[in-house]
């Protein structure tokens, strides 16, 4: 993604992933998708002006390697004119470039497959998770499903940008629960960006969630809502 979109990519990890262990299927190197990288070549015509801020259909810029004849250009923090990459102080260009960069990051969703819901796409409750809580969340949801509850699970692998259709996926459920080993970071993003209310299960005790703990807390959330509904009739 970093080379396809020419953007920094941050990989979030956590202590549980770093310290935990589980059997992993070893991939065959030959089955791994290649990461194609292209660098523009030196122009054949000397008069040809290199455009370092020209963008492809995903809005990604060319990656010209220092050392290539004729492609000298400057990158850096000052705003650049679209296409030419000249330093620009033009207000309209600045607006255009800010919008372009934001759209480029959203274009990640044109390359990454959307996340799949585990369980029915509609129901009483969706558990939304990310990172090292995957195992505990998936197993807890499986137990609750086996006990007859209408519960599904969605695990995010890409947190920014959020998947394009995530809002609609979440709205298929009466309630969204986000278990996190922090005080509610993903919950803030979901509520802020998608305006979908969510209930947090949060813990910062330096220990991972246990399956039983999640099963109990999710069951209690389901029960509380049933009691609310019963009281409001």
């Amino acid at each position: 993604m970093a080379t396809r979109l020419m953007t920094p990519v941050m990989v979030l990890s956590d202590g549980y992933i770093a310290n935990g262990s589980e059997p992993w299927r070893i991939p065959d190197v030959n089955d791994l998708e290649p990461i194609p990288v292209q660098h523009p070549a030196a122009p054949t015509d000397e008069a040809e002006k290199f455009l370092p801020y020209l963008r492809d259909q995903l809005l990604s810029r060319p990656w010209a390697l220092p050392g290539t004849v004729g492609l000298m250009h400057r990158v850096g923090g000052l705003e650049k004119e679209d296409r030419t990459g000249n330093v620009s102080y033009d207000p309209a260009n600045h607006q255009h470039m800010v919008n372009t960069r934001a759209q480029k990051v959203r274009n990640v969703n044109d390359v990454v497959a959307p996340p799949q819901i585990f369980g029915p796409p509609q129901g009483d409750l969706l558990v939304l998770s990310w990172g090292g809580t995957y195992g505990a969340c998936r197993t807890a949801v499986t137990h609750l499903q086996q006990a007859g509850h209408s519960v599904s699970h969605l695990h995010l692998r890409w947190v920014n940008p959020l998947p394009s259709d995530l809002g609609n996926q979440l709205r298929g459920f009466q309630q969204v629960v986000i278990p996190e080993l922090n005080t509610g970071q993903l919950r803030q993003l979901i509520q802020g960006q998608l305006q979908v209310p969510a209930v947090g299960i949060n813990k910062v005790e330096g220990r991972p969630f246990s399956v039983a703990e999640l099963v109990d807390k999710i069951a209690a959330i389901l029960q509380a809502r049933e009691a609310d509904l019963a009281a409001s009739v």
Partner: protein
Amino acid sequence: MNTVLPVLKANDFGSDQDIRWCPGCGDYSILAQMKKVLPDVGIPPHQIVFVSGIGCSSRFPYYMNTYGMHTIHGRAPAVATGLKIANPELNVFVITGDGDALSIGGNHLLHLIRRNVDLNIILFNNRIYGLTKGQYSPTSQPGHITKSTPTGSLDHPLNPLSVVLAADATFVARSIDFNTKHLGETLYQATQHRGTSFVEVLQNCNVFNDGAWEHLTDKDVKDDNLLVLRHGQPMVYGKNQDKGVRLSGLSPQSVVLGGEMTEDQLLVHDQSLPEPHIAHMLARFSNPELPVPIGVLRQVSRPCYEEQVWQQVQQAKSKSKGDLNAIFNSGDTWTVA
């Protein structure tokens, strides 16, 4: 095959961008000298990269028709190190300011220098944060009144040359924006050094710290305040070349030549001394007791970092051909029936 190389001129190295430094800023002079020196160095623009941090000085790369990276405050050394390792053929310059190099980038600077990556660092020292409109910097003098020290700075200043000598810099020099000929020569010498070369350029910020180096640039007094270092020459200075520096015990001392005091009693400059003691001493010379040295304080040889990295890579390659599948399947693995 012999290819005829085009003869490059100073203008071939300048970009067509508007320069946004204040009129009268010392940065113009450094830019002009750099453009003038590069044709003599004989490297075409596409093999040169200027890497900078943040500050007025760090806008420098935009004004050169080479590759350029205006990076993050204080982080030019990290980017430049990566660049030089990735492609040792490139000629890399780090352009930085007293704030960029010695405040936020202080630790990066030290590690670049101790590794002796083969590149050139030019530090524009105007003893102030210019870009942010005049706050005190790590080289500001005690008592200096600035926007962020309204009742005078309490901080003991850093001496850039002492700092880089402590990191065992292999090429250490100082020059002055006003002294264009000396500046050009010093920049040229820096480009000829293999390893990290460090040049402190005393630069006037005529808007926020005007006259910071006046005692070294004013034509009436400068010659009595400056010591122009020349390799192999006795340390003579003064308007009439009538003063010198000698060692009295372990301490340097300024003396007036004449009578019993002859040139052969003076210190003779040797920039190639393996131990940096004398260079350390020179770096600390300050007015009025002693003249401020300009020129090359130290030039010694030590292996370059990027060269050693590539040696390690070659060694590893000669021992075994990398096989990703083999690595994947090594260690704690088993087959599921």
